[in-house]
């Protein structure tokens, strides 16, 4: 199953890309509309990119009133990513979405590096969100934690149904000439191929720590990459940065993944979930 990573596709601007996905994840929505950060907001690095969009979004009211009805017409399941600065924000957002049948799942963005306010602890936010909705809740974590598996255990205990791994890491690019930060916000979120080994480690360790369903992402570019995320423990993968260079990536990655799977005698993506752990498990037993 292939999703887009939140913030990396606007289904209304590119409906044909959204339709090539198994589900569409919205850009993170906050209680109030947000303008986002001042430009420059994106910068390429040698092996990835930085962004400092800063959660530009129309707010939950406009999302529900204006965008959701149009998103539904795409015929693709809709996941809504929600974000905020306090547990009460997340509670409010989940309450607003709980009764919308057109919303399949909610992703809690616990980890946006472009929003400076310190979030309350991940578990508290999940508890607050859980109280407001019975929809599947995916906690999206950053690898910028001393031990991401510990955070994963905490959000599981707090009532999350799954994990989205990983969000971006904080990074910096300096302008070639001035040596000043290229981004308007100085630092920004680092994504793309450079992140892959970090993301894979997070998926691998959180899968072992929790056994929860995981949406794996971070630098996925090919079917081989997708296979590795499944093997490490993801049940679903999401494409982010790759969509900018290749809007046809969902179909391509899906096809490449099927080729990789059948070369290994596996019938479907689910059969690959967690296979990196098999030998380890055997050793332990």
């Amino acid at each position, binding site marked *: 199953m292939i999703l887009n990573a939140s913030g*990396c596709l*606007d289904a209304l*601007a590119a409906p044909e890309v959204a339709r090539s996905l198994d589900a569409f994840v919205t850009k993170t929505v906050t209680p109030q509309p947000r303008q986002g950060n001042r430009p420059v907001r994106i910068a*390429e690095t040698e092996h990835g990119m930085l962004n400092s969009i800063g959660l*530009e979004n129309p707010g939950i009211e406009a999302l529900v009133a204006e965008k959701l009805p149009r998103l539904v017409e795409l015929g693709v399941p809709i996941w809504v990513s929600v974000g905020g600065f306090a547990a009460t924000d997340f509670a409010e957002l989940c309450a607003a979405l709980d009764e919308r049948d057109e919303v399949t799942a909610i992703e809690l963005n616990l980890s946006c590096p472009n929003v400076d306010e310190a979030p309350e602890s991940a578990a508290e936010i999940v508890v607050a969100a859980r109280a407001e909705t019975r929809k599947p809740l995916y906690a999206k974590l950053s690898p910028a934690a001393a031990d991401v598996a510990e955070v994963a255990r905490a959000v599981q205990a707090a009532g999350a149904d799954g994990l989205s791994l990983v969000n971006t890491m904080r990074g910096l690019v300096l302008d070639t000439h001035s040596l000043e930060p290229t981004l308007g916000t100085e630092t920004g979120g680092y994504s793309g191929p450079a992140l892959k080994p970090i993301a894979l480690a997070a998926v691998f360790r959180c899968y072992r720590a929790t056994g929860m369903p995981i949406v794996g992402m971070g630098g996925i570019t090919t079917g081989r990459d997708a296979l590795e995320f499944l093997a490490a423990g993801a049940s679903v993968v999401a494409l982010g940065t790759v969509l900018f260079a290749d*809007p046809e990536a969902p179909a391509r990655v899906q096809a490449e993944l099927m080729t990789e799977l059948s070369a290994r005698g596996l019938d479907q993506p689910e059969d690959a979930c967690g296979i990196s752990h098999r030998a380890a498990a055997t050793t332990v037993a």
Partner: protein
Amino acid sequence: MEGVGAYTLLRVERGGLEPGVPGQFFMVEAPGRLLPRPMSLCLAPAGELGFLLEGVGPGTRALCEVEPGERLYVFGPLGNGFRLDVERPLLVGGGIGIAPFPYVAQALGDPPVLLGFRSERHAEAAVLLPNAAVVVEPTYVTEPLAELVEDHDVLACGPEPMLEAVRALAPTAQLAWEAPMACGYGACYGCSVEIDGVLKRLCIDGPILEAA
């Protein structure tokens, strides 16, 4: 690939792509780089798409060194393009801002063109628009433009200070803006600019904006 003064003309096979409306752009893979680069369509000969490149950084320099026969991933046309229903068009280009105008000029039946360049070498690119009036720094396009602006509908493309100066002279001009773009199709929100107090994505609501 051919040199045109200080610039390089890149011609790719059209494949299944439409050339689109003049002023629209394509996202062009830059070999070895993660993100594609936005490029205005410059020429649309049969079966081909032509882009005029200025090598200013790693992406454009890599594109200037593409070898014949290499495959590049290109997608588009993107953005809104120029409104061509104007009565007395005048094309005003600064530097690499000449890029969209050969294709525009073809669509408009060779309207008058005013081009400014920062050196004689850059000015050689004016061969792409044989009837153009050309000025070279320290003269700026705004100088001859001041005399022509009354009687014309201006379509302009060039560096931001030039566009601001053109806007001051020609409040109804159509201006082709730039912003760093990761995707070119509305996916990343990287190109947001404030237009009349509202944030818009330049890649889908632009790159051509009415001056006003």
